[in-house]
């Protein structure tokens, strides 16, 4: 940890403790264990499995996380918070060897110690195995001399192990922080048999988690509730008695309307609140509403492949369209203020964000419809009359009509696509909105292959490949990693696996490669590279980055210990009822 971040960490701590004690008439008595904490969630957000190594969704890791801590986490300022780690991971000066030291007091349910051997076993025999097919194995692989291979873990002693790479990837350390162990003494029973491993009771009931999490698994009624009990042995609770809730419950609701009604009635402790209801809950004394940044953003992809409108292959045209779509209007009308304009895949909450280098299209002063029209004209397109409207004409003199494909089901996406239609009508571009199911969108619009070839359809089969159906724009929600944004290369690099819109740019490729190399090892250098990358991306506009949404979370006001922020839950085990 640098001196700088350490200072920030201390300042935050002081500020928080002042906040906690500054409450009038409150002398901060020691929290008592009491009550059940019930978190509301909307169906569809439910986890897939507790056998997390098999999970493909994000919720599964969240569910398991209550019972099993990872090596480290982050606070709201992205400062590292040690969990199973005894001290921060040491990286060798050449950036190739990572030395990990875990706490000595970690125990499995049978009382045996969690050792570095469990971690190394989990990697070597489970995550890196071919019989299990870990979904996120790409994170643990590197390309050396054109061959994909796994990083190499090794046991040093009972609580220390190393992970060795052959190539430098400065952001690999964040992958390590998320590492969780499987108990070797149980896993060996199922090794090599994927069916037995999948169906293993111990893993699906999380009955091995010992003192590794603030809670232990109790019950899971699918589509209804996930119930955890307080774990009195939790390794971080020895001094302060944490956690302070008898039970932690995740309750599923069919709609957010019903969920918010439950919060209002006091039936649940916390849930997300939709923008239009924030005022209502802010007025209630029993409810505290915290507005926090999220990792989610929305983009309009411009189809730059051969089956999209040819204009979209020109940078100037993409810029003009992005300019015409006013982000402030979207923030104001659709999010009612609870969002911020996006300019690249690096959000302003990220430590790598640079406000000065990005081109802020779609935000005043670069939100002029007139200027957008001028840019389209400068790019060689003419305007003509269609009835009494001025419309943009393509090269053959026909009015330009763009097909926007998106999926139904999300209110925000639906509203946004309708708003975009109106915005582009103002610069003489007719947009037809087509709603298709997600399965259709990915198969017929995103997947592509070179026509006539024997290629298997993938989401990026390189230049020359096109999708089955023609399209011009798609609108969808993505999420980014503010700490390691270079993961977004999957969308924007020429060989990115989800670069379905066909954006091929050498400069961008080079920058992604540079960040993930020895040159990115120094944080300041990496910052400069990210600055350059977001500048190029915001200029090239392979997609129109629209907004980063802010989440609103409503809590019963008797819940104490919350620190609002992007990683608000980082200290959840310290939360308690008044």
């Amino acid at each position, binding site marked *: 940890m640098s001196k700088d971040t350490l200072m920030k960490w201390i300042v935050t701590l002081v500020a928080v403790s002042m906040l906690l004690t500054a409450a009038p008439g409150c002398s901060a008595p020691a929290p008592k264990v009491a009550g059940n904490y019930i978190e509301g969630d909307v169906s569809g957000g439910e986890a897939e499995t507790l056998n997390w190594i098999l999970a*493909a969704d994000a919720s599964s890791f969240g569910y398991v996380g209550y019972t099993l801590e990872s090596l480290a986490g982050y606070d709201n300022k992205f400062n590292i918070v040690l969990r199973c780690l005894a001290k921060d991971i040491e990286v060798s000066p050449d950036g190739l060897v990572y030395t990990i030291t875990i706490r000595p007091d970690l125990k499995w349910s049978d009382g045996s110690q969690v050792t570095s051997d469990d971690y190394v076993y989990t990697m070597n025999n489970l995550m890196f195995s071919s019989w299990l097919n870990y979904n*996120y194995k790409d994170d643990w692989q590197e390309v050396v001399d054109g061959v994909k291979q796994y990083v190499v873990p090794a046991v040093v002693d009972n609580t220390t192990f190393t992970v060795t790479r052959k190539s430098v990837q400065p952001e690999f350390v964040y992958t390590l922080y998320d590492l969780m162990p499987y108990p070797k003494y149980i896993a060996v029973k199922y090794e090599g048999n994927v069916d037995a491993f999948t169906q293993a009771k111990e893993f699906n009931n999380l009955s091995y988690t010992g003192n590794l999490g603030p809670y232990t698994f109790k019950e899971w009624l699918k589509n209804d*509730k996930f119930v955890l009990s307080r774990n009195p042995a939790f390794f971080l609770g020895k001094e302060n008695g944490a956690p302070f809730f008898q039970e932690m419950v995740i309750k599923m609701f069919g709609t957010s309307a019903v969920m918010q009604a439950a919060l209002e009635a006091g*039936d649940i402790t916390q849930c997300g609140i939709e923008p239009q209801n924030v005022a209502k809950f802010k007025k209630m004394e029993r409810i505290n509403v915290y507005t926090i940044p999220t990792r989610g953003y929305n983009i309009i992809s411009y189809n730059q492949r051969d089956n999209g409108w040819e204009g979209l292959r020109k940078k100037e045209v993409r810029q003009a369209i992005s300019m015409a779509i006013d982000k402030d209007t979207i923030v104001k009308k659709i999010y009612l203020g609870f969002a911020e304009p996006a300019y690249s895949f690096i959000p302003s909450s990220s430590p790598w964000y640079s406000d000065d280098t990005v081109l802020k299209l779609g935000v005043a002063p670069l939100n002029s419809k007139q200027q957008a029209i001028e840019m389209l004209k400068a790019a060689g397109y003419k305007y003509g009359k269609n009835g009494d409207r001025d419309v943009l004409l393509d090269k053959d003199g026909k009015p330009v009509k763009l097909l926007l494909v998106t999926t139904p089901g999300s209110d925000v996406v639906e509203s946004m696509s309708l708003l975009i239609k109106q915005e582009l009508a103002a610069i003489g571009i007719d947009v037809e909105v087509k709603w298709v199911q*997600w*399965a259709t969108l990915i198969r017929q619009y995103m997947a592509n292959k070179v026509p006539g070839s024997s290629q298997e359809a993938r*989401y990026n089969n390189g230049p020359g490949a096109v999708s089955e159906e023609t399209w011009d724009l798609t609108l969808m929600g993505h999420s980014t990693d503010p700490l390691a944004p270079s*993961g977004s290369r999957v969308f924007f690099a020429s060989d990115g696996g989800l670069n379905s819109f066909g954006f091929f740019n050498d400069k961008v490729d080079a920058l992604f490669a540079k960040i993930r190399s020895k040159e990115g090892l120094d944080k300041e250098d990496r910052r400069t590279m990210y600055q350059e990358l977001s500048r190029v991306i915001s200029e090239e506009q392979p997609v129109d980055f629209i907004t980063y949404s802010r989440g609103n979370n409503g809590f019963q006001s008797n819940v104490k210990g919350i620190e609002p922020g992007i990683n608000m839950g980082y200290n959840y085990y310290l939360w308690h009822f008044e």
Partner: protein
Amino acid sequence: MRSYIIKRLLYSVIIAWGILTITFILLRVGPTSPVDRYILNIAAKGQDVESVRQAIEARYGLDKPIIEQYLLYMGNLLQGKWGWSFSASQPVMELIGSHWIYSFQLILLATIFAIILGVGLGILSAVNQNTKIDYATSIFSFIGISIPGFWLGLMLILVFAVYLGVFKTFYDTSYPIWSLENLRQLIMPVLALGTGELAGYVRYTRSAMLDNLRKEFVTTARAKGLSERTVIGKHVLRNAVLPLVTIIMFDLGSIVFGGAYLTEIVFGIPGLGQVSFNAIFANDYAVVIAVTLIGTFMVLFINLATDLIYTYLDPRIRYD
């Protein structure tokens, strides 16, 4: 009689097999994949989506030729293995075992409610034929069969939960099944589900009663000087019950994955309907087939039971 039942049972198995096969084919020839839902998440973490898809499909045996998958499934089924639900990470039977009670209590209560009130109103309507009571009941039953159950549920929530706050807006599984609170919170779902059935029973009871009231044995009974109460209760009603049994049984069979499912959605009841529909959206074929089969067997069993009840109620009917 015995050979008749055996024959029927055999026939049921054949029908169930047909349904199983159709479901299996439908599920596996479609273009959707269980991995679809996770693509963005996998991609957001920088993974190659296609290789993840292949890995997951291989893990659940979905990459094999469909005929091989079918034979494998059938083989397991014959050994009594219902398979593993990969969307719920649970054995299929365990999943069904923990959810069926929520559907069952709802359907049971709704049916009892509908039968008691429906038959009662139907009798009332028939004995007061062409009076104001009759007309009012008749209009009510028309309204009842025409009102969409799920909408009625929404309206009940809107009025009694959102505006009046008498009930919770959702079904709370933390109450034990055998508790008064649980019974109380089932009032709205039972109303939403039962009203349509109730209205149907009113109509059937009324017309069956009227049919029988015109028959000779009624005249005879009345001529013998029996009280009107005995005539209606003993003679008319008994004969009117027969067609009603069919209707009720038929309703029971069709309600589970129809009206009950929508009611479950509206009130957030985690019953079998929800389980099966979530499984459809997750391409979890083992669960879909299992619940389809359960539904099928229920209908077949109910059909058989209806026939047998018939022979009991009306000794003139014989099956050979």
